[in-house]
């Protein structure tokens, strides 16, 4: 008797009836690193949701501090160096001082609409994690950036996983010319250098914004998932349980998506979370290159883009904030994915 047989014979004796997912969850809970990373991911999800629902960081674009306000723990900036020159330029633009300004009335109206208190508010010399060029709170900005970046990562990964799974299922299940067609398509797609492809699609869409970034990443990122799902389908379509399904008269669609898909779902799930990490990083790169989200939105990428000029002036906090948030989520998500893969590995069953 093998060890697996010994284990399964014990499983049979248990009166309760745990499904495969419940068993996977139990294995997952045993993995401490996995559980910790899971909590990090959950925390970021909470941030994303809260920010998306305008519960927190809704006023991220409000200019609450002096420009480049340093973090509170670093103490206020020495006035002659950092705050003076931008201050003068700011007071001009802030308006109200020049009686000849033809736009004064209009500006006042706009300000009144968007929370008129802002003029009266005292600009804080320091902010919790510093401020950016316009005195916006970096912490809130990072939270808002988290929302954008995570949303882009998740949506793009979902799109890529959907396309990859659909193509992979069709190619692997039907074989023959359908398989050939998708394989050629895949080969052509992967033969184009990645960045070139992204830039090409960005040029075709010709529009900046979150949806564009999602489309770019989703439409280019399905190839790896396609390969894996196709291989899984090839493996499963010759299994006896599928022959049994055919014998009872189950249709092709039913066999493909009701019978096989749940059996390969763990592969898709792991790939999905791997791609979330990948796409979060890609979004940063895209935004850094200037193909990212629009100017009215903030993402980690756009924060890093701003940071490159700030860093020379010694304003490190925006860079650090975005980097820490990203590193935490990416590492957490990667470890979570690893643990997920271990827990879902059918080899253990």
């Amino acid at each position, binding site marked *: *008797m093998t060890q697996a047989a*010994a284990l399964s014979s014990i499983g049979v004796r248990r009166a309760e009836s745990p499904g495969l997912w419940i068993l996977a969850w139990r294995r997952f809970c045993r993995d401490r690193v996995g559980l910790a990373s899971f909590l990090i991911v959950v925390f970021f999800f909470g941030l994303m949701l809260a920010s998306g629902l305008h519960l927190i960081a809704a006023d991220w674009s409000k200019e609450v501090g002096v420009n480049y306000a340093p973090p509170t723990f670093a103490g206020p900036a020495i006035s002659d160096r950092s705050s003076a020159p931008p201050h003068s330029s700011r007071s001009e633009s802030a308006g109200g001082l020049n009686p000849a300004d033809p736009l004064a009335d209009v500006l006042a109206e706009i300000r009144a609409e968007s929370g008129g208190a802002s003029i009266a508010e005292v600009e804080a010399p320091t902010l919790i994690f510093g401020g950016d060029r316009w005195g916006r709170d970096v912490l809130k900005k990072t939270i808002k950036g988290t929302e954008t970046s995570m949303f882009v990562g998740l949506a793009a990964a979902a799109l890529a996983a959907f396309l990859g799974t659909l193509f992979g299922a069709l190619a692997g299940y039907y074989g023959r010319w359908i398989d050939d067609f998708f394989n050629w398509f895949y080969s052509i797609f992967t033969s184009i250098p990645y960045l070139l492809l992204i830039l090409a699609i960005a040029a075709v869409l010709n529009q900046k914004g979150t949806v564009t970034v999602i489309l770019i990443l989703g439409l280019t990122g399905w190839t790896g998932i396609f390969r894996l799902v196709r291989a899984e389908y090839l493996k499963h379509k010759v299994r006896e349980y599928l*022959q*049994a399904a055919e*014998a009872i*008269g189950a249709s092709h669609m039913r066999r493909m998506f009701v019978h096989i898909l*749940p059996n390969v779902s763990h592969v898709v799930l792991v790939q999905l979370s791997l791609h979330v990490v990948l796409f979060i990083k890609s979004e940063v790169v895209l935004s850094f290159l200037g193909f990212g989200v629009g100017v009215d939105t903030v993402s980690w990428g756009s924060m890093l883009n701003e940071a490159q000029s700030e860093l020379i002036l010694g304003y490190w906090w925006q860079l650090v904030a975005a980097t820490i948030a990203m590193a935490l989520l990416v590492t957490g998500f990667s470890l979570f994915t690893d643990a997920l893969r271990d827990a879902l590995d059918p080899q253990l069953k």
Partner: protein
Amino acid sequence: MTPVNSTETLIGIHDLRVDFRVDRTTSFQAVKGISFDIPANSTVALVGESGSGKSVTALAILRLLPKENSTVPAGSRILYRGRDLLALAHGEVQKLRGADISMIFQEPMSSLNPVFTVGFQLTEVLTKHLGLTGKQARSRAVELLGEVGIPEPQTKIDAYPFQLSGGQQQRVMIAIAIACEPKLLIADEPTTALDVTIQKQILELIADLQKRRRMSVWFITHDLALVGEIADYVVVMREGRIREQGRVEQIFEAPQDAYTRALLLCRPQLARRPRRLPVIDDFLKPGPLVGRDIPERSRGLRGDEEIILEVRHLGKSFYSREGLFGKKEFKAVKDVSFKLATGKTLGVVGESGSGKTTVALTLLRLREASSGEVLFEGKDLLSISQKEAMQYKRRIQIVFQNPYASLNPRFTIGQLLMEPLQVHHIGSSEGERRDKVYKLLEEVGLPEVSFFKYPHEFSGGQRQRIAIARCLTMKPEVLICDEAVSALDVSVQAQVLNLLQDLQDEHHMSYIFISHDLAVVKYMADQVMVMNEGEVVEIANSDDIYRNPRHPYTKKLLSSIPQGWRGRPI
């Protein structure tokens, strides 16, 4: 607890226990304190069903148990020529492995490395353990291959494993195992994956080698009938304990233990055909002893039965590419014709590759037939459209061989059994369907809670019941059993065979019963069809064919059935 006081003891196992750790708190005792001896120059058979701990015992002797989760508690001793194998240093054990004790496994294909020639794998052992030079090793390897009966050893030595047949691969494995002239050869189910005719040859080879080399063979198997032919001593194990041990004649003629008796009688026998096979529980529960007094069932066709299914000149070819444009035809099934009578069973026997399964799959249109017709109530199933075929699909069903593979692991039993009802729109509402499924679960002897469980929570026999229940949901008129009981333990096999027979008696179904096990077919079938290389060589009433085989191939097949101990030439 020495069974016999004959010759010198080669290996003595004393109070061996093996624990497996399942998780942090629970552990599982696979072997619960067993003691037996393996005398020198003899064959000891260890018999047990799956889960009895027989393979674990073998691995414990070779110290091959996984270290992470298995422990052998103190107090267990395995004495090999006075040395305790469990206390030896790792290096010492490694020296013994292969040289003094070697092992052959069940699956020859997966035991040989597919990317090296058999010669390479054989000489590796010789150079490593015996220190021969390359040239010496090669000539010794050729000798060994000749000794295990491989034809043209000079050329076959450079063959890759896939170029050899299953039987030849197992011969190579044996050659590797005996290369260093071990004192003990452990054979763990060495013939289970092989055809009957090959099985016989391999058994003869092992018996012959045992005598010639005066070594001991420790033969591990689940099949008591096989043991009777070759063993000197028999040890019967169940659930980690020894139930009985003794000389072979004692085990077969005067078994003391109820479980041993059960094992002997649960297996269908060629000579008898009781109405119902006894099962293990009949023997283990207290009460009057059952067994030899069950009335016999008579089988066979008179010739005036109603015919439900007629197959005419069925053929199936597979094509493989050859060269740039060429196609090579391989005829898997050639001109097969037979008739299936209503309420009767047609047994199909043949070795692997004889086309039995292909016939079954073409009948169901799971494979496209190349030629011929299948008449079901006068309608040719092979020529009708896919849509028309749907209504016939529910009337012909199939139970597959491997109960572990034929149930979708992500479906609950409820989902599995409800699906055919949904696909064929049987029953008017979900509730009605569910009631039907509950009734079927009861009919195949499974509790109602099974509805919510997943396949992995069931044993092999239970899973096969589920597969049968799934077929029954559609109330088929023809049920094809493709090696449906071959993967099951003897005791479970008897239960499933009884279930199939009860269902036939009750629903008057017709069976096509495909098996390589001639005894099982004899028990189940009214008519037997013998297939060889895609052709039907003989078809006749089962009693006739077993009593009086006409075709030489049938004779050869029948002569290779393990006879048990009484058929043993002494």
